[in-house]
């Protein structure tokens, strides 16, 4: 690119915002269509061809509604939470190498930065829940904090394993190291760590929990907490939370694509490019949607037990195993 740096960044940020908004709108459509097919019904069909304009109609509806700050709520924090919740998704995606030259910011500590920004999400939901002065929202906020902290640990341990394998925190370098056919992807590098698929699974589970998706949607738990932290949000306040949910899914799935599935690398070692990245990304996103409509919700203490008793020990084990194998070989 020949644009001067500030303009290039600006262009990227605008592009990413569009990307996030488009994704949020059309992933909702994909989700509703998928849910429909899974439940043997057609899903949205009325607005536009195959319901393709449904997200536009939904967006207009949300935009036209009043943003109500409930009496007794902390108005500043209540307004701040939707802004906070969308920020980490955007920042994380800015660090994501979509293609060899298609990334906004090439940072040496990219992986670390994604995690650092990612944890703002917890804060945002907590602030939103707390500021609402709603009992359901506060219960939900408490749940979010304990859940996300519990799942960030095995997620970081899994990422640490990857970091040791790759020897770098730079996301585009991590992808570059996986060049070649698909057995060069980290997921299949059994020579570096025979438990790599397990690490992948741990990371995937944690990603589901971090993005508050079913079966770990404790924060939203509709049949228990009405709408959890978003109970008091109306109009676009809720809409932004909704967008952030999808932005976080896209972020989590693109992180998995970069770390495990070789990013923009093609599976046969030729024709690499951004399309492979998007293909892998949307395959993962689809699996997230699929899981949501197939499983019931877990119980809260089972969820924490799963993290502390199974995921953390296993991810520690794979970490130590990788370290040992690197030392020996």
């Amino acid at each position, binding site marked *: 690119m020949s644009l001067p740096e500030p303009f290039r960044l600006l262009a990227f940020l605008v592009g990413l915002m569009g990307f996030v908004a488009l994704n949020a709108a059309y992933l909702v459509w994909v989700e509703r269509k998928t*849910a429909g097919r*899974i*439940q*043997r*019904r057609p899903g949205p069909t009325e607005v536009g061809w195959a319901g393709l304009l449904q997200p536009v109609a939904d967006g207009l509806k949300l935009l036209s509604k009043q943003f109500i700050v409930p009496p007794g709520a902390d108005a500043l924090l209540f307004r701040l939470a939707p802004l906070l919740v969308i920020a980490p998704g955007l920042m994380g995606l800015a660090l994501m190498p979509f293609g060899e030259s298609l990334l906004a910011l090439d940072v040496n500590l990219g992986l670390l930065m994604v995690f650092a920004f990612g944890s703002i999400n917890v804060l945002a939901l907590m602030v939103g829940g707390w500021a609402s002065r709603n*009992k*359901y929202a506060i*219960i939900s906020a*408490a*749940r979010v904090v304990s859940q996300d902290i519990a799942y960030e640990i095995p997620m970081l341990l899994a990422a640490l394993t990857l970091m040791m394998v790759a020897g770098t925190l730079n996301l585009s370098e991590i992808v570059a190291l996986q060049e070649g056919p698909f057995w060069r992807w980290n997921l299949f590098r059994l020579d570096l760590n025979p438990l790599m698929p397990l690490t992948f699974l741990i990371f995937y589970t944690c990603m589901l929990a971090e993005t508050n998706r*079913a*079966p770990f*949607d404790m924060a939203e*738990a*509709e*049949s*228990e907490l*009405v709408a959890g932290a978003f109970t008091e949000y109306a109009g676009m306040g809720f809409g932004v939370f909704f967008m952030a949910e999808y932005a976080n899914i896209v972020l989590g799935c693109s992180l998995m694509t970069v770390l495990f599935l070789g990013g923009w690398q093609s599976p046969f070692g030729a024709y690499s490019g951004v399309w492979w990245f998007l293909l892998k990304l949307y395959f993962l996103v689809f699996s997230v949607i699929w899981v949501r*409509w*197939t*499983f*019931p*919700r*877990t*119980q*809260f*203490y*089972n969820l924490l037990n799963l993290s502390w008793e199974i995921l953390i020990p296993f991810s520690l084990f794979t970490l130590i195993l990788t370290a040992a194998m690197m030392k020996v070989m």
Partner: protein
Amino acid sequence: MSTAPFSRNGTPPETFVLNLGPQHPATHGVLRVKLTMDGEYVMRAEPVCGYVHRMHEKMGENRTWAQFLPNTSRIDYLSAMNYTHAFVGAVERGAGIAVPPRAEYLRVITSELNRISSHLVWFGAFLLDLGGFTPLLYAFDDREQILDLLEGVCGARLTYCYYRFGGLCNDVDDNFIEGTRAFVRRMQPRFKLYHQLVTENIILRKRLEGVGPITAEQCRKYGASGPVCRGSGIPYDLRRAEPYSIYPELDFDIPVFSEGDCLARYLVRMEEMRQSLRLIEQALNRLPDGPVVAEKVPRTIKMAPGDYCFAVEAARGRFAVRVVSDGTDTPYRVKLRTPSFSNLSLFEETSAGMMLPDALALMGSLDLVIPDIDR
């Protein structure tokens, strides 16, 4: 207030009151539960009912016997057949009307179809409470078949008024018989599918196993009946305990599980649907020819003064109608004994000390229908 098992070193726990309902996704209607919570633990759950009280009992005193009949199908709108059966049975008992055998067989067939449709709604709604949305639509797909069948015989899809004093309002046609047979054939593999998809799901089992135990003692104390008491090891089913209609002639099992947890109640209902299919199949095979309504049913029912009672096994448990006649053409008193009310009474005692999601799973496993509580 019951003492919570988790109060720390004798200090009184800090509690807050959470109003669950009258509008809440988990209460499936306008039930309000006043929860005293310590964090996410329920210390006391106080059901507040009466939001949809419609004075059915009082209405009974102001209407003729026949005029009150449609009311009974609106008490528990999910098992209307069973409910009308109880009222019709009580009046027939009082007026000494004999029901022809074909009508009795058709009553059993339609009642059991209604039981399956009611349990299917419960199955979907319960899974919805547990956060699984998809089973609801599968269950409704099956239920739709039943609704179509019953719509064919009596015109209504939900609040049936098919039973009349002395029989039925009209005979069934071949479409119904064939359709019911096809439905029975369709449902056998469906239950296998449900067990594979839902019952064997590890998340579901972890959610239900050992959660919300109800002892047989508690069931007796509060008069719980139906799948709730059968899930606690009490083999009490009115179709056996106080046989009515042609149930004694038919062969069926009463599923009983002794664990008393949510999973036991879940399994009782799943097995009951299969037993209902067996009942329907047998009744269809033996369906006799003949009239569907007794010959001499007076246009205006007049009963000898007295006290008559008739109880049926509805989808949620024991539904009993007690009518007191003073010899006029309107009842002197109608007393409705509804199962959901007794089953809800359990909730306060059994939910103390549970976490909120578990308490809601327990509430879902009781299969409450709010108009049935409030009458």
